[in-house]
């Protein structure tokens, strides 16, 4: 059987979901029999070399670079999976969605207890090299079409494993009650 190709990325996330993927322990040996990785932090490949079968997205979209990467993933992946709460609902970063962006930036760079008085020129970083921050943190499915969602913070290794196996072998995925959790 020809190996399926997997790509992964972390947008506005903490890499916890990638850590959870590595938590499959010795099953990683079975995994590399089934798949090979293209663009992914797992193998440190930065660019897509071909169209891939499965894309795993961790994290929501908080800046324009996240949106760019997500759209690229949608274009390159036959199946795109949102992995974890951040990809599904924005995650803890989305707590800022209830506060106007200017207020957030002012608090972070000008008025917060750890910066007050230290930022004499009142600079809020806006170099053109930096990706522009979005007004809100967006769940991935509000930007592009997402085929499957794996909840959890992070989703357990067993859940990610079950999902990958089911996608690779074209089987029905097992989602036992104990594995599908939002925390």
């Amino acid at each position: 059987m020809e190996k399926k190709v997997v790509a992964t990325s972390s947008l506005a996330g903490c890499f916890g979901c990638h850590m959870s993927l590595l938590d499959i322990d010795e099953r990683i040996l079975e995994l590399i029999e089934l798949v090979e990785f293209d663009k992914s932090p797992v193998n440190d490949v930065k660019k897509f070399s071909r169209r891939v079968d499965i894309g795993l997205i961790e994290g929501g979209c908080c800046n324009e670079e996240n949106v760019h990467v997500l759209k690229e993933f949608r274009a390159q992946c036959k199946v795109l999976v949102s992995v974890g709460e951040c990809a599904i609902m924005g995650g803890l970063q989305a707590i800022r969605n209830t506060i106007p962006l200017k207020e957030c930036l002012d608090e972070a760079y000008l008025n917060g207890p750890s910066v007050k008085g230290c930022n004499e020129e009142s600079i809020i970083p806006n170099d053109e090299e930096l990706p522009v921050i979005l007004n809100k943190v967006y769940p991935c499915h509000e930007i592009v079409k997402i085929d499957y969602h794996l909840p959890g913070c992070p989703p357990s290794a067993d859940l990610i494993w079950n999902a990958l196996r089911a996608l690779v072998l074209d089987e029905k995925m097992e989602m036992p009650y104990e594995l599908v959790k939002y925390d």
Partner: protein
Amino acid sequence: MNQILKFKLDGVECMGYKDQYITNAAAENGFYIPTLCNIPGVKPRGACRICNVRVNGKLMTACTTPLANGMVIECQTEELKDLRKAIIELMLTEGNHFCPSCEKSGNCELQALAYRFNITVPRFKYQFPERDIEASHPKLIKDHNRCILCKRCIRVIKDEQGRNIFAFGKRGNRITINIDTELANDISDENARMAYEICPVGAILLRENAFREPIGKRKFDHVPIGIEMERFHK
């Protein structure tokens, strides 16, 4: 003794008593009808609408509808299951429910129902409304981000003189459940704990009580909500 009534629930012949509500009669007959606002023994309000069933073809809230002889009740039809799922999804998107950082996660009935209905992502757009947290009370914290307005706290928590500690504030889509500041200052430890426990979500929190139970030992970590009531339906 109360008059015995016969009714049919999802095709199964059941028995209940006069003046019993459908949810309670169903539970005694081994059926679980999901609810968020209902508490056995307290006058029902029909606030959350998750217990919607079809009684003789008409949509009714099972927690507020008294049993009648010969009722034909549908509970687990695909239509009703989807309706309930939609209500839960609406609640998840209407407020700010950040499960990973919530003290009630694992013991939250809204979350448990979402697990039960296999919700991986809601069909509605997240609203991210701007809501406050009242953290000035000595024993309780009221987090309006998570409140689903079920009215459990208003109906149950009273002081020794029968005064309400919780009450509605504002109206319409700006409605909130507020704590009476003066009464909350004198609230007994027992009442404060009860308020925390009856809140189906993490909207009423007890101070110095967060994250006491590790993951794996919480109420809904291993067992779906309502499973103890079910004999006929899983």
